């Protein structure tokens, strides 16, 4: 078990070495978002902006027009919430090459409670034209996605987490933006997941197997652009779909999948995510259980979705 934010810190440092145009900004959360190693090695390319996220994001936009590749870092709540309109108008609209990299997303924030648990950030970012949205499932994917995001030209929101999560991939795994990864193959139901729920989905698939159900598990690490080809193929193959995310069921991965399948290949779907509610203080694992986004919830939903097949 390792934290995605730690992988981000390692990848950012390497990016700093690989490309002199990479710069990093933070808003008084350098320790938490793991920009420390980068700041130490490249003090002149690191900008501490204080507790001022909207300004940080607009400053990053300006830097990108001067040829830099800025990584603006903070918690998901503040990078996508406080700074939303900066992202929309100053970065999304002119399609500037800025990376909004945020840790502490979803219920995974834990004890700090609802004020800090962004359960809307995927929705907020994916409704902005030109903005690519990526979600890290584990350590290796956070590392791989950070590298892919840096190489991609254009605005990107990269969603990372605070707690340690199960390792799904081997270190060194390559990630391509917009290309989902199939982790398990099965014909009965397709579990489309992102973030910590990818690891949960793998566990759920093991459980389902014991009940004689063969599930596909797919990591849709890119919410936008959504890998429509893979999604439709899975829906056709399995005839039932589960989405699973540490996010509100409204507007996130579930919303994106539903919009796409409604248009291309209507399929029964069950949505695992928070049910239009705020979180609360507590241990992340306990929260994921209480709010119905854990292994057992995926198993139950998979059975329901299969039963709903015509």
């Amino acid at each position: 078990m390792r934290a995605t934010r730690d992988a981000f810190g390692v990848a950012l440092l390497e990016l700093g070495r690989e490309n002199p145009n990479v710069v990093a900004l933070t808003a008084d959360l350098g320790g938490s978002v793991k920009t420390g190693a980068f700041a130490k090695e490249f003090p002149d390319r690191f900008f501490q902006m204080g507790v001022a996220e909207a300004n940080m994001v607009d400053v990053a936009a300006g830097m990108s027009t001067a040829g830099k590749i800025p990584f603006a870092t903070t918690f998901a709540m503040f990078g996508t919430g406080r700074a939303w309109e900066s992202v929309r108008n100053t970065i999304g609209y002119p399609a500037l090459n800025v990376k909004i990299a945020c840790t502490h997303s979803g219920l995974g924030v834990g004890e700090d409670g609802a004020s800090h648990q962004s359960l809307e950030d995927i929705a907020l970012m994916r409704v902005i034209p030109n903005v690519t949205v990526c979600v890290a499932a584990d350590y290796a994917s956070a590392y791989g996605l950070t590298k892919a995001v840096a190489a991609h030209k254009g605005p990107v929101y990269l969603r990372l987490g605070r707690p340690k999560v199960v390792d799904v991939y081997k270190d060194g795994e390559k990630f391509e933006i917009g290309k989902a990864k199939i982790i398990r193959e099965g014909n009965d139901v397709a579990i489309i997941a992102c973030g910590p729920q990818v690891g949960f989905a793998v566990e759920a698939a093991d459980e389902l197997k014991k009940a004689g159900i063969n599930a596909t598990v797919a990591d849709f690490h890119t919410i936008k652009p959504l890998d429509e080809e893979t999604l439709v193929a899975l829906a056709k193959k399995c005839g039932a779909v589960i989405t699973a995310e540490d996010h509100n069921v409204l507007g996130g991965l579930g919303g994106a999948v539903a919009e796409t399948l409604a248009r291309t290949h209507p399929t029964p779907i069950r949505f695992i995510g928070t049910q239009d509610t705020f979180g609360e203080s507590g241990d992340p694992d306990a929260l994921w259980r209480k709010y119905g986004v854990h292994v057992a919830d995926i198993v139950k939903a998979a059975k329901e979705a299969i039963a709903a097949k015509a």
Partner: protein
Amino acid sequence: MQVEEQAMKLTAESEAELKETARKLRIEVIKMLARAGSGHPGGSLGMADVFTCLYWGGFVKHDPKNPGWVERDRVVLSNGHICPILYAVLAERGYFPHEWLDDLRQLGAHLQGHPAMQKTPGVELSTGSLGHGVCGGLGMALAERQSKRDTHVWALLGDGEIEEGLPWEAFMAASHYKADNFTVIIDRNDAQIDGTTEDVMSLEPLDKKMEAFGFHTLVIDGHDYAQIIGAMSEAKATKGKPTAIIAKTIMGKGVSYMEKDGYKWHGNTPNKELAEKALKELGA
């Protein structure tokens, strides 16, 4: 029971009483955070003396058994992360049973990691995301005045917090509207998460900035009871403009190892051994 609001006259005896209250509150803060295993001790301890003077010095007209009493004064904690001290105060004043302090930050708790007005009586606004509380507090002040109620709003904020744009928008509006029923108390501990404020994002000359934004501005030692009570009395008496009290405090005040390491105790909780050391120093 409605608490009559009348600024305390500070005598050797009343000061000793206030200090004893602050000591008890600090003990509750340490116990609460050690149990919770996470949370923010530095600012909570640093603001214990200011909170004590507010709630025991006669500056908050309130009724703990009727938290929604319309004639009450308001305390808004814009730097919501230091809520352990607010929770200790509210429990001690009788807003809820002391047992609630035991579950801080646990699943299902009344006391959230950051203040939630919908879960905790005595909390006037849900905060935690920095910058909002002071704006909401100004809204309360403007509405109260428009309703012709003689109440006062105390908005507490952190010095790191005012790096956000929102507080300055509120400061501008407060002086534009001559909100003299509105006082901001800035916890000037020169500390935030990544370092000292002057290293992270320099704020000085803060008093001049507040004056330029139209505030009657007072700089005090936030651990000196005569100065705290004097400034609060002056804030209430000031007409025609809002008041800013810049309270110089020491992060972790009362616990030697926290005082020494300053900002490192912004959001770190002491382990069992260090918590015991802190409680011993506080005479628990």
